[in-house]
């Protein structure tokens, strides 16, 4: 693996160049929120932030996406797909959010069914990750196989060390970008910074306060769909909003519907949907296989810690802590995992 060094003073130059040559998506501050948005240059980009309020999953799966527009002229049906995607750079994504994108890949780029809307964006996007400099009380990526300085899935991973960024080149895509801006990426001093990064990773990994351990949890869920545990407080206190699913970097459910713009014209859209909503599983005949919040909560957490593992051998949670932070009633996936471990003792 190759590595490079960028002086902090040159990061603005890099961002300005990227914004000129690419569609640049980077973290910005909007009032109290940290969000990923398209930026026109370095001036808006936030480099010092803990984690964004919403993950950058929208780069690959936008909350609203037009899949095609249709026009019926009386005897012919005309279908128009949107123009090709732009070359994009996703800058400043945290390791957990990049790992989350890896959990999307087998879903949208599966062997049987590919999703061109997703894979086109995925192909034309370079992901520049940014290691965390701080561990929050809600973070638990270490328990989900990640880490605050884990570059898995990124094309380039930047780690802030002193007045420099240590750059790990993880893919060909990343290499091409580094070569294109070779006046900014130097290799001087990279060896020392590599050691410093190891130190930082070690230091940060000792700062997690949430104790989470997945061992044995899937096993108990495998044979026990109907655990009395799911009837407990979580189902009672959940208010059934979609906050956890919309802030989740790995939640990827969507709904497809037509939006007519005239009698014979319209758009077919794809929008985020949430398994926490009752209509999510409501069938046309009126039957709902997940009629109450108990079934819906069970589904969400089973998806994270069982179904995704069953299907793709990946945990469906990356430990970003957003749902823990944002849930209005403090439903906490780490508590659920720990509770289930306790349940496992008695099954």
């Amino acid at each position, binding site marked *: 693996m190759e590595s490079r060094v960028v002086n902090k003073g040159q990061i603005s130059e890099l961002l300005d160049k990227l914004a000129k040559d690419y569609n640049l998506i980077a973290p910005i501050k909007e009032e109290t929120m940290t969000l990923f948005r398209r930026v026109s240059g370095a001036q808006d980009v936030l480099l010092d932030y803990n984690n964004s309020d919403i993950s950058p999953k929208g780069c690959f799966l936008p909350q*609203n996406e037009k899949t095609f527009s249709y026009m019926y002229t009386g005897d012919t049906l005309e279908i128009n797909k949107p123009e090709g995607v732009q070359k994009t750079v996703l800058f400043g994504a945290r390791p957990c959010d990049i790992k989350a994108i890896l959990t999307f890949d087998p879903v949208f780029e599966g062997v049987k069914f590919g999703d061109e809307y997703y894979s086109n964006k995925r192909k034309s996007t370079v992901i520049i990750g940014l290691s965390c400099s701080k561990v929050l009380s809600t973070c638990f990526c270490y328990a989900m196989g990640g880490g605050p300085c884990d570059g898995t899935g990124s094309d380039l991973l930047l780690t802030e060390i002193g007045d420099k960024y240590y750059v790990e080149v993880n893919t060909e895509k990343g290499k091409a970008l580094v070569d294109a801006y070779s006046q900014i990426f130097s290799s001087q001093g990279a060896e020392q910074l590599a050691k410093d990064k190891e130190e930082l990773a070690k230091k940060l990994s000792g700062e997690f306060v949430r104790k989470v351990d997945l061992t044995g949890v899937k096993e108990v869920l495998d044979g026990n769909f109907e655990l009395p545990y799911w009837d407990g407080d979580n189902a009672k206190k959940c208010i059934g909003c979609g906050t956890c699913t*919309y802030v989740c970097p790995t939640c990827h459910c969507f709904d497809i519907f037509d*939006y007519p713009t005239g009698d014979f014209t319209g758009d077919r859209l794809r929008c985020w949907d949430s398994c926490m909503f009752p209509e999510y599983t409501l069938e046309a005949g009126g039957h709902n296989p997940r009629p109450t919040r108990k079934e819906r909560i069970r589904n969400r957490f089973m998806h994270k810690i069982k179904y995704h593992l069953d299907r793709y051998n990946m945990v469906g949670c990356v430990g970003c802590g957003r749902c823990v932070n944002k849930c209005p009633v403090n439903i906490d996936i780490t508590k659920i995992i720990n509770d289930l471990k306790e349940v496992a003792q008695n099954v």
Partner: protein
Amino acid sequence: MMDVIQQLREQAKKLLEEKKVDLVIGFGQGTELARTTPVFIDSPEGVSKLTWGPFCANNLAKYLTDYKNAPGNIAVVVKGCDSRSINRLLDDNQISRDKVVIIGVPCSGQLEWQKVSAEIKPGASLKEVVDNGDSVSVKTDAGDYKFDKKDYLLHRCLVCENPNPVVSDLTIGKEQPVKNYEDRFAEVQALEQMSTEEKNAYWDKQFSRCLRCYACRNVCSVCTCQTCVFDQMLPMWVSKRTNLSENTAFHLTRAFHVAGRCVDCGECDRVCPMDIPLRKLNQKIHKDLGDLFESPTPGTKPGLVSPLGEFSPGDPEEFM
């Protein structure tokens, strides 16, 4: 605060033991030091889960409608603001008074847990919380912290109309004085002063952030429709697209649908994951209801009729 928790547990235990209620809904310790979570207790042994303090932001009256058709009685722990919801739910015939035991706890303000958490050493565990009037002392095993209320209170608690419950069957803890840290409608007035363009830009920015997770609607204690217009598929009044137009339609409809019933508990504002200042919409309505109809905050008294729900010959007639 420890004696309030003790009394709370004793009273809850008594209610459950004497079979006066089948369920007690209260606050329990959450998964962060400065956070609580709703707990549902159905046996006398469970009462040790109950807690109280300046981190009990949730309005638990919300849950009463979940048990509307369930057999048995329910006790619920409410703050002053939450108790307004109870009056409102009673007036809307959403709950019956004889099925609910209201445990009122006077409240001296709730702190914003994220702000408090940011100050406290991660992983610390809570020892004691002491209310000093204008500040709160939080004692932990990793040291003691002091939080000034004017900096750490939830925004809605900076102005409080009812620190003491307006309706309750039993009250625990001593009465709290009314204390306001700012003018109730100052922010609404500031917005009103803006030009049309400025107002437009301000709200467009807020609404465009909306994710349409519906947390604001779902947490609202007076949102009691069986099927919400926003969940309806046929006809689809508001589509699932999250764009500025649909989001604006959602927020205006939500705010106006609770006009005259909103008890100003501020939960919508607290739960918004995108920090949209939803309460500024509801407060505008509160202000206008006051200005035009001299209407008090809904729920402050039992049997208050919303001015939008009745006709009086003295009503202002701007549309004649």
